């Protein structure tokens, strides 16, 4: 079982281009159709869990499946199998990046590329803002107030990211539970 988990998640890691939701269909196909390790319903639970808990979706899915199939050891094997291809490929790419990045041509290509990278991060960010402020397609008042408040804290007082998120959690408890 551990060997099988290892092989399947190495494949998922190797072929899940685009990260996060782009990799979702690949992961789902492997886990619910090819191996029947979980039902579609369980898979959608994993997606929900991923939104509720920290960490990338595919890591969460790997941990969840590993845990269900072979306990804690299974979770560890599946999660690390997922990550190994990333580590090897990124190690190789880093080597080349630092070897060649001072070449004028490479420098110029990277400079132009920066625009696209910022655009892609913006797109990812907007999706997040949308699901946080417009959960049911209409603008939510409490969420918007909290959003503006946190932006204010970050810009005006340069609050640390983790502190800002923790404050948001406490305010969330007050706004969405107590009130």
């Amino acid at each position: 079982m551990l060997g099988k988990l290892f092989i399947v998640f190495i494949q998922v890691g190797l072929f899940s281009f685009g990260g996060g939701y782009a990799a979702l269909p690949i992961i789902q196909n492997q886990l619910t159709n090819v191996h029947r390790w979980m039902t579609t319903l369980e898979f959608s639970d994993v997606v929900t869990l991923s939104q509720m808990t920290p960490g990338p979706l595919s890591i969460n899915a790997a941990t969840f499946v590993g845990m269900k199939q072979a306990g804690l050891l299974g979770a560890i094997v599946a999660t690390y199998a997922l990550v190994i291809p990333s580590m090897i490929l990124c190690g190789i790419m880093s080597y080349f990046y630092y070897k060649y990045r001072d070449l004028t041509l490479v420098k110029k290509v990277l400079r132009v590329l920066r625009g696209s990278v910022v655009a892609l991060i913006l797109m990812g960010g907007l999706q997040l803002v949308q699901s946080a402020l417009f959960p049911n397609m209409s603008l939510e008042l409490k969420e918007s107030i909290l959003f503006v408040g946190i932006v204010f804290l970050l810009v005006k007082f340069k609050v640390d990211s983790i502190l800002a998120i923790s404050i948001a959690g406490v305010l969330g408890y007050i706004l969405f539970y107590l009130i």
Partner: protein
Amino acid sequence: MYFKLFITMFNLSAFTFGGGYVIVPMMRKKFVEQLKWIDEDEMLDLVAISQSLPGVLAVNASVLVGYRLKKMKGAIVSSLGTVLPPLIILAIVTVMYENIKNNAVVIAILKGMQVGVSALIFTVVVQMILQLIKDKNYYGILMFFMAISLAVFLKLNTVIIIALSIIIGTIIALYEVKNNVG
């Protein structure tokens, strides 16, 4: 240094809800703005590389940042820091999933944190866009709009957008180099 790298990644990962597009801006804020270990341009290059490789974006980025700081050992330490929090948390959550799923307090706190994260991303992205303008990176700004159009209107996958951007970037760079020489 290793310990600090590990702890920093561990904290970022433990508080990062959602995948790569959340943790990457957070890494930038931490490593570029606060610790000043990496400069702005280099960080964006590392993000570009992590986006063009398969695998988990957050892990790719953390491996690259770790490698930048302390070579292979740094990459291993950094990725451990990124992977452990979701591994630990999800292992626990899987066991008590049914109880957590419907707990109103947990849902309220998580909702607040989700709004907090989106506010954070929003401010970081605005800063990144301002940086493009400040650098007078006109081709970059052009690519910014091109990438958005490709994503919105043609619904192209991230990897394809990055690949196209590399091709166009190479053409522009070759043109510039040729003009400088000639």
